[in-house]
């Protein structure tokens, strides 16, 4: 019998929670140490997924399927393909890093914090592997609660509650409409085929009339667009990011937002392909607005965290643009860019967290000339900023280049507009970097700041490794997604062909 690796990876954090419950709540070191151990183990458990993954096939791998609620067609059905593999690895990879980053930051209610963190991990991993719509929805919603608590309990005292509720309600709004769409889809599938099931892969093939696809695409799309977040549904993001504790922001940026883009790839597009083609202009333009608007607003921010938050809107716009090209480089670039954004923006939030720990402010104006007292910090910050801008040789470049390449093939105007986003990105990042790090030390409080400790360097080392690795040799990662992407594009092209055939047929009859 094969070991149920996926289930172990999903539920191991929950086992960890049970373990944490028995630990002394006063002993923070032990709590953090044990959680770090759990995080490392979790990463270790997920490694077989990477090494034993067969990149030649688009089929689902490590599949586990148990009847859960057979009379309703609900099963516990999980699996991994090229789309989800990288995101799962990113999640488990970030777990120990996040725990390490809480060492100084979180000083009260540590036990509860760790419990929330682990529950969140479990929920996010579940979202990425679920192949049953019901199961997916359960994970999608369950994951809200720990994130909501992370923001609301450990966030910035001033506005954490507002941000937490806003986050919860925004996400809930989208997902409830998605629930109705899931039900409509379920009954449509049941009526047309006679089998009532929530099995996603079986639903991929079913013919859905265009008017139904249209509305269901919008219902699913709203849920995911809020999560991504696409313009104009992004307003929860700056608040949530700014008010969340450092680790909350890291997870939010690195993993949570990807649930939205992943949702488009896994659910929206394959389930409603004709509608997806139909909506290419709308979503591309929203993505473009997101890219430019996010960048412009970033430029004007005074608060570092808000700046990075708006830069996320811009970066995720790139991802969406890439996915909606339905070309090989576009989609692959989109996937790689999801990982890149996770690494770079995650690292940026960690950086802000570290100077916040030292100075208890995040205002750009309070800094200046930090590179003098903190040279190591400056170097790391520089590399991460450049990776976020998309300097060749670092990871951001690969993703943005592929996306732009894919977009050029389909629409030159879109690509031109998107390319300006890259320029803007350079503006706001470098300007911010200049104001924070370069020049004379203007504020006396900054003169004696301590440089990074070994723990902090240890946090960045693995991140930097992958920032460079993806930048220099992206094929390691692109190969894993290739077969799945090809299969996905073939499916999308077939849907487009059949749609054109149908519409030409209509025209023919009309004549």
């Amino acid at each position: 019998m094969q070991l149920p690796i996926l289930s172990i990876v999903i539920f191991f954090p929950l086992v960890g929670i049970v373990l944490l419950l028995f630990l002394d709540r006063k002993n923070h070191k032990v709590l953090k140490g044990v959680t770090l151990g759990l995080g490392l183990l979790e990463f270790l458990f997920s490694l077989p997924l990477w090494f034993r993954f067969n990149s030649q096939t688009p089929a689902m791998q490590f599949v586990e399927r148990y009847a859960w609620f057979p009379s309703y067609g609900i099963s516990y059905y999980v699996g991994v393909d090229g789309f989800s593999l990288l995101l799962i690895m990113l999640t488990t990879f970030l777990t120990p890093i996040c725990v390490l980053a809480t060492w100084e930051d979180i000083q009260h209610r540590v036990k509860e914090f760790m419990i929330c963190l682990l529950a969140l991990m479990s929920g996010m991993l579940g979202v990425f592997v679920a192949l049953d719509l019901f199961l997916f929805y359960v994970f999608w919603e369950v994951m809200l609660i720990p994130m909501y608590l992370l923001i609301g309990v450990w966030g910035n005292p001033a506005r954490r509650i507002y941000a937490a509720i806003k986050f919860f309600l925004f996400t809930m709004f989208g997902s409830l409409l998605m629930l109705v769409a899931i039900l409509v889809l379920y009954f449509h599938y049941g009526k047309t085929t006679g089998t009532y099931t929530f099995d996603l892969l079986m639903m991929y093939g079913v013919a859905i009339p265009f008017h139904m696809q249209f509305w269901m695409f919008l219902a699913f799309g709203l849920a995911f667009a809020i999560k991504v977040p696409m313009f104009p549904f992004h307003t929860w993001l700056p608040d949530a990011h700014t008010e969340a504790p450092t680790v909350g922001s890291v997870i939010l940026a690195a993993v949570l937002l990807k649930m939205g883009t992943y949702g488009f790839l896994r659910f929206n597009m394959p389930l409603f392909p004709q509608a997806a083609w139909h909506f290419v202009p709308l979503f591309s333009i929203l993505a473009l607005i997101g890219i430019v608007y996010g960048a412009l607003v970033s430029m004007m921010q005074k608060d570092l965290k808000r700046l990075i938050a708006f830069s996320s809107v811009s970066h995720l716009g790139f991802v969406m643009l890439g996915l909606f090209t339905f070309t090989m480089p576009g989609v692959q670039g989109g996937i790689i860019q999801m990982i890149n954004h996770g690494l770079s923006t995650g690292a940026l939030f960690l950086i802000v967290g570290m100077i916040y720990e030292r100075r208890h402010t995040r205002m750009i104006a309070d800094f200046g000339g930090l590179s003098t007292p903190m040279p190591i910090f400056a170097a790391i910050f520089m590399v991460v900023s450049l990776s976020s801008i998309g300097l060749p040789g670092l990871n951001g470049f690969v993703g943005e280049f592929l996306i732009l390449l894919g977009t050029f093939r389909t629409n030159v105007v879109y690509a031109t507009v998107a390319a300006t986003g890259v320029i803007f990105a350079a503006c706001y990042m470098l300007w911010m970097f200049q104001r924070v790090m370069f020049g004379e030390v203007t504020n006396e409080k900054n003169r004696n700041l301590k440089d990074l400790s070994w723990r902090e360097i240890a946090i960045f080392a693995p991140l930097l490794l992958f920032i460079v690795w993806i930048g220099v040799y992206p094929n390691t990662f692109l190969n894993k997604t290739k077969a799945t992407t090809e299969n996905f594009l073939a499916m999308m092209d077939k849907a487009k062909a059949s749609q054109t055939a149908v519409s030409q047929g209509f025209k023919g009859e009309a004549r």
Partner: protein
Amino acid sequence: MTLTIPSFTLSSIGPWLTLTGTAILILLVDALSPKGRKAYFPQLSLLGLGIALLQTFRLWNHTGTDFARMVYVDNFAFFFYAVFILGTALTVLISRHYLEDYGKNLGEYYALLLFATLGMMLLAAGAHLIMIFLGLEVMSIAVYVLAGLFREDAKSNEAALKYLVLGAFSSAFLLFGIAMLYGATGGSLYLDDMAARLAQAGALTQPLTLLALALFIVGFGFKVASVPFHMWTPDVYEGAPTSITAFMAVGVKAAAFAAFARVLFLAFPALKVDWVMILWVLAVATMTLGNVVAIAQTNIKRMLAYSSIAHAGYLLVALVAANQLGAVSLLYYLLAYTLMNLGAFGVVILVGRKKDSYLSIYDYSGLGFQHPALAAAMALFMFALAGIPPTAGFVGKFYIFSAAVQAGYIWLAIIGVMNSLVSVFYYLRITVLMYMKPPEAELGPVAFTPALTTVLLVTAVGVLLIGIFPGFLYNLAVNSVKIFPSL
């Protein structure tokens, strides 16, 4: 108990007899025993309820009618028996400590609870409209008295009087409806042949039947607290003793829905178009009003009162769907609601203490880190009431909205889920207060009595268990609603 007399089998109403017997026994013991014995009433009641539950299990899968077609002996009724027994047992458990605070640990309290439960069973099993009316009255009169249990308290008095006057009024509506129907069918009040008789009666009686239907909807609408017949709910729920509020929100509602569903599905299938239309409007109004007004509440009992109105709205959606799944979701949801709502009220009683000193929602501030277990339980019940997985509340809503979508009422489902969103706001506020605000009042120690601990454990575990493994209950419920041929 196999005492057989040609026309009926006593065992088919075994649970009723047991409850009646226990209630009378309690009254006798109360009257005859010296003061010290009085503490045994909860145990006696639980024993009676336990035996009744056992009898219900033994009756399971029986079908047909008994007592000259007056009583249904079917799984639909038995499922509800189980729900009522569960609800009453949990109410008994949360009552004792609470009543002792008030110095009111009276025998008649428990006897009345059992009588009310008996009335609910009559409602769920009534096969003749007079039986249903009897059940309604047995239940209501007991609850009127219970609502006014705290004689010295003006609010409790107000609650009882309001409930009595309005309740009597609504009973009259129902009775009037029954009279109309008696005329329309040409002199029969048996549910099982009513549909056929109404179909035969011809077009002339159509207005009479419609009038009867409208009066029924008013009568039952009052008992389930549907808008616009909900006016009594907040005041009565706030004024009544907390344990009775819980009992009303759960048991009375479930019983009224049982009879409502049976009458609509069995007697009025021909008028489905009409009642579906009316209930569609009522459901939307009920959900929306309940949820929106609940946002403005600062008293936890009032908030839960409006939330119970909103939940009646969701349950009406299940009736509107009028398909098998709808009936199943009704049963499932009522059971789930019993668990999560009684759990929440258990917490309210634990936090309230000392004659309900802490009933403002702001008293929950900081509870999360003062009493982690209690707050975790409350958070679980709040998330369940809001319909967030993996709780029973989510699965219940999932069924209800599935049923609506299956029946083609997609807009109703959309309005329903949007209402859930609104409800998330005020349920979430309790968790915000518990976990994200500093304590406002020093709550001091909370007395976890074994009974209340049991309630919280049973409800919390139940809410999670049937939320994560819904299959078993679903199959039971499907089995129970097979009696409705028109679905």
